[in-house]
């Protein structure tokens, strides 16, 4: 199901740029598997796919940040050797990442021409007249009416994005890659951006547009390519497809035994009850419940506020509204209080937030239960060692002994140390943020067995995951988030990837 570009957009038979049979392997995961992708002059090519489908990896290959393991890059049919961002620029490829590459305390013109400033008469000095007149010219090209002397740190996100676009155009970019450019824009700003994109398309610039929003795919796209699990699934024209088709293409139907478990038929007591929660970090009106014996999913796109919810519930972020009840008691909203009352947060970034990497496995296991274990305040090594050995046995942590530093363990075993730490502290409610990020398939299965064992023993689990397959197969229920709010709850029999995508997408 491949289509060639529209004849109107196709001035010659050879595409402006072509990626042919690109594969890229990362430890434990095949990020790209023989993906081919063409870019035609003056087209807007939408790139669509779930989190982890390989969109970003493909674009990083295009812009020289990654080198493909195999496959070819061709410009106008001729091989293009791109092994660094500088190479990509020479081929007229510019990428606007979600993370801007702007210097906050320089002005717009200096940012546009950073590293390429016009030489003045005195060596080292900048020809300011040309700098600002050229910047003005580039800003006019996209109809951005602003003084180029304005410092960038005073601009809003939408304006900074315009500066990024101007910067790309000033380098004579012929291919502009935009990674979810509307993620942080208002409706009006989005309209302006679309107008600019259409204008650029008129002038022959090709635009590769990564998006999660189906509405814009149809509003803007000349062609749509869908990636799933590192493979190209389809390349279609908007007229030949529908939002439902696209969702089906993105989601696929892969089922895996990794996730097999007995679902919870009769949930126990209400362990965690959150009502109307809002925090400084942009989440609002969050209400959810976790009962004993349940694994409850919290899903949505990256950036929809899932981690922020976890942090707010645990007390790591300041709460501005709402109530959290743990086993019926209202909690104060500090990590210390939450931990003492039996809540555990197992963060996404273990290395930064969950473990003292330089310390031993044993030290880490007793870290959260020191109060309970040593009420007198005096540390008793023998008692700590006993608790550590118990944790290691219970979770089958693969370590030569409790005295080994955590840093030498594998990712999956480090994860277990974090869980053991909270088990030692008698936690009943576990919040897992991306528990399988960065661990291989075997470790994943074991992780889910571990989570299942926790709920079998009467714990309640709230699990955040970007991998919808995991949510669908592991969870008893799931909440779907979009833009800082919970937009739906899916019971076990409604829990399908298509439903998650439908709720989580910006339609």
């Amino acid at each position, binding site marked *: 199901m491949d289509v060639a570009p529209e004849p109107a957009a196709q001035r010659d038979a050879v595409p402006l740029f072509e990626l042919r049979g690109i594969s890229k392997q990362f430890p434990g995961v095949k990020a790209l598997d023989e993906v081919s992708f063409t870019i035609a002059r003056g087209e807007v090519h939408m790139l669509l796919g779930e989190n982890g489908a390989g969109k970003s990896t493909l674009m990083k290959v295009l812009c020289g940040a990654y080198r493909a393991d195999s496959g070819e890059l061709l410009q106008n049919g001729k091989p293009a050797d791109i092994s660094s961002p500088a190479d990509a620029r020479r081929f007229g490829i510019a990428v606007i990442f979600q993370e801007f590459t702007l*210097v906050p305390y320089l002005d717009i013109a200096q940012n546009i021409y950073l590293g390429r400033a016009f030489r003045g008469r005195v060596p080292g000095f900048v020809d300011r007249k040309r700098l600002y007149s050229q910047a003005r010219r580039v800003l006019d090209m996209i109809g951005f009416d602003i003084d180029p002397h304005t410092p960038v740190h005073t601009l809003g996100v939408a304006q900074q994005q315009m500066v990024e676009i101007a910067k790309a155009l000033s380098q004579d970019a012929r291919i502009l890659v935009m990674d979810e450019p509307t993620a942080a824009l208002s409706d009006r700003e989005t309209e302006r951006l679309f107008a600019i994109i259409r204008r650029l398309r008129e002038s022959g610039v090709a635009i590769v547009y990564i998006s999660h929003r189906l509405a814009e795919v149809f509003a803007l796209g000349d062609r749509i390519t869908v990636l799933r699990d590192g493979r190209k699934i389809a390349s279609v024209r908007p007229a030949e497809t529908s939002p439902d088709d696209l969702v089906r293409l993105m989601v696929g139907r892969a089922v895996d035994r990794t996730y097999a478990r007995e679902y919870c038929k009769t949930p126990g007591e209400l362990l965690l009850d959150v009502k109307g929660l809002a925090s400084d970090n942009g989440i609002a009106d969050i209400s959810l419940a976790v009962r004993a014996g349940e694994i409850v999913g919290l899903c949505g796109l990256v950036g929809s506020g899932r981690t922020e919810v976890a942090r707010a519930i645990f007390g790591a972020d300041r709460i501005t509204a709402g109530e959290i009840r743990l086993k019926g008691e209202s909690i104060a909203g500090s990590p210390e209080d939450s931990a003492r009352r039996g809540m555990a947060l197992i963060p996404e970034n273990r290395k930064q937030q969950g473990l003292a990497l330089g310390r031993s496995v044993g030290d880490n296991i007793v870290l959260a239960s020191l109060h309970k274990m040593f009420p007198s305040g005096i540390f008793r090594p023998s008692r700590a060692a006993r608790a550590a050995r118990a944790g290691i046995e219970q979770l089958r942590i693969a370590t030569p002994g409790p005295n080994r530093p955590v840093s030498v363990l594998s990712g999956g075993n480090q994860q277990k140390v974090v869980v053991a730490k909270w088990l030692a502290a008698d936690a009943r409610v576990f919040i897992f943020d991306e528990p399988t990020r960065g661990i291989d398939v075997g470790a994943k299965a074991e992780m889910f067995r571990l989570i299942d064992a926790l709920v079998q023993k009467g714990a309640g689990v709230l699990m955040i995951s970007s991998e919808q397959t995991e949510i669908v197969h592991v969870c008893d229920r799931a909440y779907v988030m979009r833009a800082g709010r919970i937009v739906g709850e899916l019971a076990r029999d409604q829990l399908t990837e298509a439903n998650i995508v439908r709720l989580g997408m910006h339609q």
Partner: protein
Amino acid sequence: MTAAASMILRVPGVAIALVLLVAIFGVANPNFATLSNAQNILIQSTILLLLALPMTLIIMTEGLDLSMGAVLTLASIALAMTVVATGSSTLALAAALAVGLGFGVLNGCLVALLDIPPFIATLGTLGIAQGLSLVVTDGQSVVGIPRGLQQVYGGTFGGVPIPILIGIVAFAVFYLTLYRTRFGSYIFALGGNREALKLAGVADRAMLIATYVVGGTMAGFAALLMTARMNSAHPTAGIGLEFDAIAAVAVGGTSFERGNGWLTGTLLGVLVVGVLRNGLNLMAVPSSAQVAGIGALVIAALLVDGLRSRA
């Protein structure tokens, strides 16, 4: 908010601090608000300015140079020993600059090439420079500075004291460099978004080294004024100068994050420190206690800045 209140909020805090300090000392001591004392303050502030200017650039890169005072000391000793041995002021200045440049290169390489945190790297070079100063002098002052060299601090040119002229020229050079040259915009980028600089194809590490080299060299140059002022080189002469320089930069409103620097603020910050030292001197507060005053001022300035930016 009333118009008057919002106008006051727009006046930089360091300017308000300067006015307040001048007013307080003017009232407290009749000898403070005189023309000759004003000139004194300016002259005495020059050495600090020569350190605070490059310190601003270094802090803008999210760095720090703790070694400046010690490097100044060592450069001062090199200068004094050279002039005593050879009689040539030119050679002596070259020796001082060479010491400063060498330590600047060392600092820059430690930070930019070996990725040692600037605090640690320059703390180490502080120790090295300070230790060398004590070793080569055996803890004694180097005396016998010729009259001509003393004129660099005591003399005038066209009626204006030479240190003040040096200060004006240094400020102008730094101002033009930061705001009008490519190197200047790279300094903003080093602290503001180093990734952007890399993507723009600029040798970011080389630029970072250059920033520390500027710092070291300026410390070497400031040694000339220090030696001329003390009429000797003493192995503890520069101790704590980096503290005053960092204080001046911080009071002047340069941020330790995101490459947000303000050179005029540093100039005002230097004057604030200078006025404070001078005023406390006139009130016979011992030098050791003045350090406490400066420390309190830095904390107060940052607190007030934080409150004002929220208002």
